[in-house]
């Protein structure tokens, strides 16, 4: 075994040998090594957030024809560190009547629920914290703690706007969990395993689930944007609608941690998307050289993250009723039918070659997507016909010629 073929285990064995040389018991050495791995992973992702904040502000600035941070350090790179120092020295203001324990636990839980997701992500071949055989459900379970943090923050603040904001958010988040869970079912079904490493292995040779099941990838992408609370689904902090949402009574670093959790979470869902749908670390030469796989993985995750930022920068916010309709009347029926169709097609094509099966699955996805778009188009046209008389009436009253049917179809 050398460093380039298995870097994590190589370092682990080297350090283990070093520690055993000091006369420590083997179980203690193992414990120390896992502790080190956890610390590296958790600290790494927390510190990485600083860079993410800078990157996001810079990209958003460019989208909005601004420069973004550019004063502190080269390209403004030190700006988030300056912000961090500022927020560290701010006063905590705890509102009267706040419920002490849940109030203080909520920001910790919000950050922990994002950090914990990294425990099962395979960063490269044999570079994974723990290859849990129920990895996909683990991700869903940890997501539940994020929702719980919002509940606790909302009701322990003793503020009716915080509570109202929290309730809106929870209704949204739990709703969007349904299509997310169903979309994640498709990769599990195709790979026959819930382990993240096994899902990555099953996508070897370019059979990325983005190509095999593009619709599941789309549903997962949309619902994970909603889970993170990013524009166009940023109702978690719709400043113009509710005062600030569930975190209104938080200040200083306690507020900062909700912010950190949101930024890190939006990168984390990109990482999960890259793992489950873009083949993770798979790529030429990645199986023998895990560090190369790590580079592929980060590039893929970064591309997804960039698309996420493009969404945020270019789309206006949805109304909450539109968002609920999108979830329950479009994404959930779509993902339910997708699971059925993919299961049936995959079972019927069980005996043909991988390529033919992949093409069959892809075309079935496209057919489902086409049917869904057609149904939505007809429903939209029907609704337009229902409201059209009202418009014609108004236009006749104002004296202008009524719109020719067909010419204004692209409502």
């Amino acid at each position, binding site marked *: 075994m050398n460093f380039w073929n298995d870097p994590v285990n190589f370092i682990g064995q080297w350090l283990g040998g070093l520690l055993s040389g000091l006369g420590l018991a083997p179980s203690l050495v193992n414990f120390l090594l896992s502790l080190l791995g956890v610390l590296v992973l958790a600290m790494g992702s927390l510190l990485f957030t600083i860079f993410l904040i800078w990157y996001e502000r810079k990209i958003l600035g460019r989208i909005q024809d601004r420069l973004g941070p550019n004063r502190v350090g080269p390209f403004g790179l030190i700006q988030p560190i300056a912000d961090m120092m500022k927020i560290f020295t701010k*006063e*905590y203001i705890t509102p009267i009547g706040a419920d002490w324990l849940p109030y203080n636990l909520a920001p910790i839980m919000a950050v922990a629920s994002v950090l914990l997701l990294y425990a099962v992500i395979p960063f490269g071949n044999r570079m994974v914290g723990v290859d849990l055989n129920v990895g996909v459900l683990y991700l869903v379970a940890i997501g539940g703690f994020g929702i719980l943090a919002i509940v606790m923050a909302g009701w322990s603040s003793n503020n009716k706007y915080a509570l109202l904001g929290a309730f809106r958010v929870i209704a949204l988040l739990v709703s969007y969990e*349904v299509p997310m869970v169903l979309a994640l079912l498709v990769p599990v079904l195709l790979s026959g395993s819930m382990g993240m490493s096994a899902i990555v292995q099953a996508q070897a040779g370019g059979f990325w689930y983005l190509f095999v099941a593009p619709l599941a990838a789309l549903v997962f992408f949309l619902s994970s944007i909603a889970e993170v609370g990013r524009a166009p689904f940023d109702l978690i902090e719709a400043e113009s609608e509710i005062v600030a949402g569930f975190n209104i009574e938080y200040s200083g*670093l306690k507020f900062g*941690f909700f912010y950190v959790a949101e930024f890190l979470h939006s990168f984390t869902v990109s990482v999960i998307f890259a793992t489950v749908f873009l083949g993770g670390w798979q790529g030429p030469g990645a199986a023998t050289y895990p560090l190369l796989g790590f580079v592929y993985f980060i590039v893929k995750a970064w591309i997804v993250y960039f698309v996420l930022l493009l969404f945020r920068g270019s789309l206006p916010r949805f109304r909450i009723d539109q968002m*609920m309709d999108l979830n*329950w009347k479009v994404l959930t029926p779509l993902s339910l039918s997708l*699971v059925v169709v993919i299961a049936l097609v995959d079972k019927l094509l069980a005996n043909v070659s991988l390529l033919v099966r992949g093409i069959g699955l892809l075309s079935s996805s496209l057919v489902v997507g086409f049917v869904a778009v057609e149904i939505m188009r007809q429903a939209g046209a029907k609704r337009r016909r229902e409201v059209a008389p009202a418009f014609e009436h108004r236009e006749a009253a104002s004296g202008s010629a009524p719109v020719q049917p067909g010419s204004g179809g692209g409502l």
Partner: protein
Amino acid sequence: MLSDWLYIGLFILIAAALPAAAIIVAGLLGPHKPNSIKNQTYECGIETVGETWVQFKAQYYIFALVFLVFDVETVFLYPWAVAFGQLTLYGVLEATLFILILAGGLLYAWRKGALEWV
């Protein structure tokens, strides 16, 4: 294996300890001068009127309810998906029936207007 869960447990401890330590450090660094005006509940500068626990609509409950039903469905569908490779067409049809029954429930909720945000 059990060691997997020990690792996860360690991760949970560290992931909670890091932000907790940071919050405590920031509390030591920052000033601490509370007064009764500052600690009032925030309400855009005016004093809070009425109780905090305003009445909520049952609509929130309905969304959580439909979510619960679909969440429990995962208990059944994820093992089925893991076993998918060993199943016959019959097994797939059984699960299809399972999903169709649930879709019927969704359709009822839709028709009943339970999925409208009011």
